[in-house]
């Protein structure tokens, strides 16, 4: 059953899901029984919120903490460097250099 969904739950404790097939804007996503329209494109292996995550809440993947939300994240939204951060060292990206590609 889980295999037909375009994402993977790695651990029951997780509040994020991992995208296993590219998702495009507007795709109907079944997240724990609730149908949500994809708010943006998701490249392979990016994360989306399994349930609403509040700013300051720990993000869990593999059942382990992987950082902290820096904004309120609605269910189904992209969870990435724009709304979460490391508890250790900052993450640097080249997005600013890419212009339209980013």
């Amino acid at each position: 059953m889980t295999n037909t969904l375009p994402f993977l739950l790695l651990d029951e404790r997780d509040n994020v899901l991992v995208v296993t097939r590219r998702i495009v804007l507007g795709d109907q996503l079944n997240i724990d029984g609730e149908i949500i329209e994809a708010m943006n494109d998701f490249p392979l292996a990016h994360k989306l919120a399994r349930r609403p995550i509040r700013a300051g809440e720990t993000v869990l993947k593999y059942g382990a903490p992987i950082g902290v939300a820096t904004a309120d994240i609605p269910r189904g939204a992209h969870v990435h460097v724009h709304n979460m951060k490391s508890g250790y060292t900052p993450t640097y990206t080249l997005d600013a250099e890419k212009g339209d590609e980013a």
Partner: protein
Amino acid sequence: MMQGYLRSDGRKGIRNIVAVGYLVECAHHVAREIAMPHREEDVHVIGFPGCYPNDYAQRMMDRLCTHPNVGAVLLVSLGCESFNKYGLERAVRATGRPVKTITIQATGGTRSSIAEGRAWVAEQRAVLDEMQTVPMDVSELVVGTVCGGSDGTSGITGNPAAGRAFDRLVAAGAACIFEETGELIGCEHIMASRAINPALGQELEASVAKAARYYATLGYGSFAAGNADGGLSTIEEKSMGAYAKSGSSPISGMIKPGDVPPKGGLYLLDVVPDGEVRFGFPNINDNAEIAELIACGAHAVYFVTGRGSVVGSAVSPVIKICANPETYRRMADDMDVDAGRILDGRATLDQVGQEIYDLTLSLGQGKRTRSEDLCHQEFILTYKSFEPLGPSCLPH
């Protein structure tokens, strides 16, 4: 059955290469020119670019020149650098390997040094090609693992599949080494619970704490821009994925670059220098890590990549395991294993783990990796400083 080249210390090699080692950057070009005509015949260039002496670099060169995959060694010195070439030559000679040092300033410059070096290498190559092999058991293997160009698929497919191969190797008595303590930040407690005793567990945790301090001082984690493009958001997330490479065997010990595992089992390689932060980043790229695993005796190295690395290494073959099915379609020529099949249900973790294990053994039966076929022989060695291993690192 694997076949190996028996060395005087009892270890066996799955390759029989001539290593051409430059002892300062000023001798690099001459070394490269000496090796160039033989680049498809297992003549590999290694070396150290610095002119100032460094115990770590000396030890790395010593371990690499006496690695079981190495059959003969040519050292290339400019003549005025500080590297202890006499000590290195003595150490290699003591193992019974043919060794020669060319000092460019004494030989008369570039042309004469290249000519003399090429003649010696051709001679040694002919001798090594006649060397007989002996049967080699899985338990005599040392295998290392790294990941590079990681993305969100690495921790789901390639790394856990490499971990399954490690589990099989350890069960068969081989020594397996995982590393990059800077990429274990966030999973140190989970890892420590797998140590064979609590004192070792404390050493494992301390090594990660050291890495966290080191990277915090430098202001960058072991995290590249491409990792974020590939869906990884933080170093902790990358760590959890990277940690999966270690498989599920108990952790038997912790070693530092150049330490050879004393027996079979799973070992963590502590790659972050000891003491105050100096000389810059612990490992400036993936090949610096690969060179350290090989210096610990690794006959082969698993390299799990999501974004798509193409590198191989001097001295030991690199098996490239592609975690991302989209990357595999673009770069299949560079990849030995298509672990992205796990993501779309075309294979299980166990199947890919078995494939990696079988491929490892086939390297001792004449098979070559993609990066070997493409003549990838990357090598890098920079300045570092380590203290000796603590007493709890290698429990009996």
